[in-house]
């Protein structure tokens, strides 16, 4: 075969697994063989097993702890209590939100399930036996299960360990223009109000949290295998808490069986396993059980909203107010950018052209596990967008305007970017109306409304719900974003070997998102090295460049950008090598995928592989050998994917059971590196949305007992209940500032999805005048709303006979 002088010899990008290729996943090869390496699969010589004793009471003084019977059990090596931890200054540890959190309880227990003691033994069964032999004498105290009880003037102070804490308020925060918003409300023709509770949920990956801590006395090095989405943050925190020098700490996150934000925080179990290993000079494994995971680790949501919208009669939104009260549990331990007490709640309404707004937020301590920022939430954006779309639904109803039309008339227009939102964000790109059009067509909107009307005459309740949103993903630029003072950049290190194959390491940490597959695709795109020739590693702090981990859908926006940037650095050096090999000056060199060529003689060129070889064997004078580099990426802004989710349902009026008829998702996340993986992320998020909307939540009874601390009560939908999804990818608005035009995507469906389901059921109940049913929309709640034509709230305490 001959090629003419002007014909491109560029490689076929899809064939080599570049951007847009639905390349099959590299990770799968080990998982389908059962050869994953999860934390509980790690076995080290001499390893011991740790089990935690948890408090059965939600709020109680500890009068005494007697562990003598536990110590006496054959096979028990160590029993740790809060008192013992206190002698080493380890009974309390700092949280990622500048509060403190108990490692093992000393004075009081402050939530049911709190860690009180731990046993390290030869075998996990023996460790469990020994836990049962520890006698704890508790003196019960009054219990607080919601913020209103906590704010009562007579409420007990939960955090009486803190010096200046006179009540249960953690913070008050506000943003926006109060005076301007007040004026907008004065001018309004209609004011639409809504109050609701976004219930406590839990990310509940199937794999629980755990660690294998291994302190080597001979080398003074601490190695910890653990379920962490952010190993470098853990290393920094462990250095602080355990006072071990940072270079002597190695955190290894092996394969992780799902994270969803649950595996970002530092949990007492990790700290105890580390201390135990140091004391016993043997590896110590701690794997929590599902009850421990659900009752004590980073939960999600639990925020109350009072929202108001100022509306003009023709449908224009003039302004909005939101007040949120967040139930943080007993310790303020959110993993989120430190400047924003309620995360990115103030990103609400970013998709709509609203001139002015004001948001106030308050955080309250209660007798529950600490957390709130987790579960595909993008730092509380799940709450922001749920509140937004529920308020928008109510507003359209109050105005008597069609739901789709109301959204459309208020969207930020395509040519109005960059657009500053009233609460301080800068959105940079979007085609919102086009997305809505695609969604409405897919759901056959006009026809459905007719069907709905017909069905109603025959007593059948059909409903349609829309949810639209744009959300900020990719925290974040160093001006505004930090965790514990560490800026939220990310990193990539690329080493191209002499044969042109490569190894890439980043500061991210996949828990199923497929980074081993997708990052290599970016390299293929930038350098023309086939993706199969690039191995990707993450998670070992000894080898990975410093990064802030994977959560809040930040990896493609930040680490992915770093991958592109390091590849460009490599390409810049390769260009010099090409010029040297081709004996021309650099200005005469052109690039096409996989090769450099002489502009005036395109058939004269060298492949990237030849350049790599030259970097080790034929460098120009004065050039450092090798073809390796690192890039750290500080994103200029967040990325702004946009989505439209539309759901149709039928509600059974006699039982309150509702079924999904159809679910359509239109996601614009910019350039899709691997369409197959992107769709997988969207479907995963939609499932979480369905779960939260239909059955999944954690609540508490009046005595503070947790309902939802195991899978019998915390309901995850199975393949039988979960609906099918119709996904649309027609709308692509590249991110203007991201090196490859990509945006985040992993959380969009969990952020925007729940409101679509809820709005659909509310629409089915439209004739009853019911304005709100708190999630989850369990059959009994829907039935009660329908039958008594009243709103149904779900906040704790759960009612009981």
């Amino acid at each position, binding site marked *: 075969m001959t090629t003419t002088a002007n014909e491109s010899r560029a490689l076929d990008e899809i064939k080599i697994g570049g951007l847009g290729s639905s390349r099959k996943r590299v990770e*799968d090869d080990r*998982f389908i063989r*059962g050869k994953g390496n999860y934390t509980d699969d790690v076995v080290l010589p001499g390893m011991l097993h740790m089990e935690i004793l948890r408090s059965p009471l939600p709020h109680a003084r500890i009068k005494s702890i007697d562990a003598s019977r536990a110590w006496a059990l054959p096979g028990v090596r160590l029993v740790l209590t809060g008192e013992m931890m206190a002698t080493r200054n380890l009974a309390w540890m700092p949280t990622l939100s500048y509060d403190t959190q108990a490692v093992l309880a000393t004075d009081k227990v402050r939530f049911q399930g709190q860690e009180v003691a731990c046993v390290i033994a030869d075998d996990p069964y023996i460790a469990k036996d020994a836990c049962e032999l520890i006698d704890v004498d508790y003196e019960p105290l009054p219990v607080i299960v919601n913020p209103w009880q906590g704010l009562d003037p007579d409420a007990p102070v939960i955090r009486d360990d803190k010096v200046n804490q006179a009540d249960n308020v953690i913070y008050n925060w506000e943003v926006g223009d109060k005076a301007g918003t007040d004026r907008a409300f004065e001018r309004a023709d209609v004011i639409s109000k809504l109050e609701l509770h976004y219930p406590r949920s839990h990310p509940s990956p199937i794999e629980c949290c755990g660690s294998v801590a291994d302190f080597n006395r001979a080398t003074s090095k601490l190695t910890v295998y653990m379920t962490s989405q952010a190993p470098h943050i853990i290393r920094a925190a462990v250095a602080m808490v355990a006072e071990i020098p940072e270079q002597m700490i190695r955190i290894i996150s092996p394969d992780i069986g799902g994270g969803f934000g649950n595996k970002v925080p530092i949990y007492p179990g990790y700290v105890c396993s580390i201390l135990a290993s140091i004391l016993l000079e043997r590896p110590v494994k701690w794997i929590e059980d599902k009850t421990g995971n659900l009752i004590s680790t980073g939960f999600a949501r639990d925020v109350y909203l009072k929202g108001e919208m100022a509306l003009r009669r023709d449908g224009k939104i003039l302004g909005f107010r939101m007040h949120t009260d967040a139930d943080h549990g007993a310790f303020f331990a959110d993993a989120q950018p430190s400047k924003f007490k309620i995360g990115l709640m103030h990103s609400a309404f970013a998709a709509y052209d609203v001139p002015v707004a004001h948001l106030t937020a308050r955080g309250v301590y209660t007798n529950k596990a600490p957390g709130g920022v987790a579960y595909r939430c993008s730092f509380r954006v799940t709450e922001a967008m749920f509140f937004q779309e529920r308020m928008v639904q109510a507003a359209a109803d109050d105005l008597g305007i069609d739901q789709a039309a109301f959204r459309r008339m208020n969207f930020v227009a395509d040519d109005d970017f960059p657009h500053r939102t009233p609460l301080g964000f800068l959105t940079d790109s979007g085609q919102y109306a086009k997305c809505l059009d695609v969604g409405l067509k897919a759901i056959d909107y006009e026809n459905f409304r007719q069907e709905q009307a017909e069905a109603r005459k025959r007593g059948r309740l059909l409903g349609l719900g829309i949810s639209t949103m744009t959300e900020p993903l990719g925290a974040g630029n160093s001006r505004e974003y930090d965790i514990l003072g560490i800026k939220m950049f990310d990193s990539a290190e690329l080493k191209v070997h002499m044969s042109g194959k490569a190894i890439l390491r980043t500061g991210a940490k996949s828990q*199923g998102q497929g980074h081993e597959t997708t990052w290599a695709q970016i390299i293929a795109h930038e350098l023309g090295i086939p993706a199969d020739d690039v191995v990707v590693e993450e998670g070992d702090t000894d080898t990975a460049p410093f990064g802030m981990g994977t959560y809040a859908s930040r990896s493609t926006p930040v680490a992915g950008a770093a991958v592109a940037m390091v590849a460009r650095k490599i390409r810049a050096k390769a260009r010099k090598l090409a010029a040297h090999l081709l004996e021309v000056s650099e200005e005469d060199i052109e690039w096409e995928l996989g090769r450099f060529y002489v502009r005036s003689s395109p058939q004269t060129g060298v492949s990237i592989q030849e350049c790599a070889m030259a970097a080790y064997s034929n460098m120009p004078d004065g050039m450092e050998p090798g073809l390796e580099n690192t890039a750290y990426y500080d994103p200029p802004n967040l990325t702004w994917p946009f989505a439209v989710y539309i759901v149709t349902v039928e509600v059974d009026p006699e039982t309150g059971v509702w079924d999904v008829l159809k679910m359509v998702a239109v996601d614009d996340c910019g350039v899709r590196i691997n369409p197959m993986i992107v769709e997988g992320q969207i479907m995963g998020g939609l499932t979480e949305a369905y779960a939260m909307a239909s059955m999944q939540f954690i609540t508490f009874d009046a005595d503070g007992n947790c309902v939802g601390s195991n899978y019998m009560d915390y309901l995850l939908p199975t393949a039988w209940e979960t609906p099918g999804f119709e996904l649309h990818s027609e709308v692509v608005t590249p991110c203007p500032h991201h090196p490859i035009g990509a945006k985040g995507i992993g959380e969009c469906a969990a952020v925007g999805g729940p409101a679509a389901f809820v709005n659909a059921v509310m629409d089915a109940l439209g004739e009853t005048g019911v304005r709100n049913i708190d999630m989850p929309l369990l059959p009994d709640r829907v039935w009660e709303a329908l039958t008594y034509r009243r709103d149904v709230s779900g906040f704790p305490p759960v009612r009981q006979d």
Partner: protein
Amino acid sequence: MTMVVDDLGDEAADEFPVRRIKFSINGRKKAAEIEPRLLLADLIRRGVGLTGTHRGCDTTNCGACTVLVDGRAIKSCTMLAVQVDGREVTTVEGLATASELHPIQEGFKQEHGLQCGFCTPGMMLAAKELLDRNPDPTEEDVRWAISGNLCRCTGYQNIVKSVLWAAEKLRAEA
């Protein structure tokens, strides 16, 4: 094999009722001396050393521990290890031959039926029992057969496609 354990004294030895069992796992015959309370999942993971079978919950709900015992898919966290005396156990490690993946494994890769991989071994074995019994399942049949296996990552849609892909391949090979 030589095993060295800490000497816990005679008192401890009396408290340990131990049973000897014989079973086969992925075609290999094994003998074991175990406490009756040892769960099958732990025999597989810690005794035999096959870690592809996972523990996910403590209330027999999630199915991450699913294995086949005499061809039937069961939750290995809810069976005592002593109960496989005389029986055949199949785990995920027994699906592939020395040279080839099982079509179910191939299907999961082809149709992106896994993300974090933690529920995957259990899913595949539940699917295997279905396909052994019903080589031409509908989507509904598949969803019903895996309704005892929880997944948080995929939303199940691609898992169903993976199983149907495998079913088609198995029918073509038959």
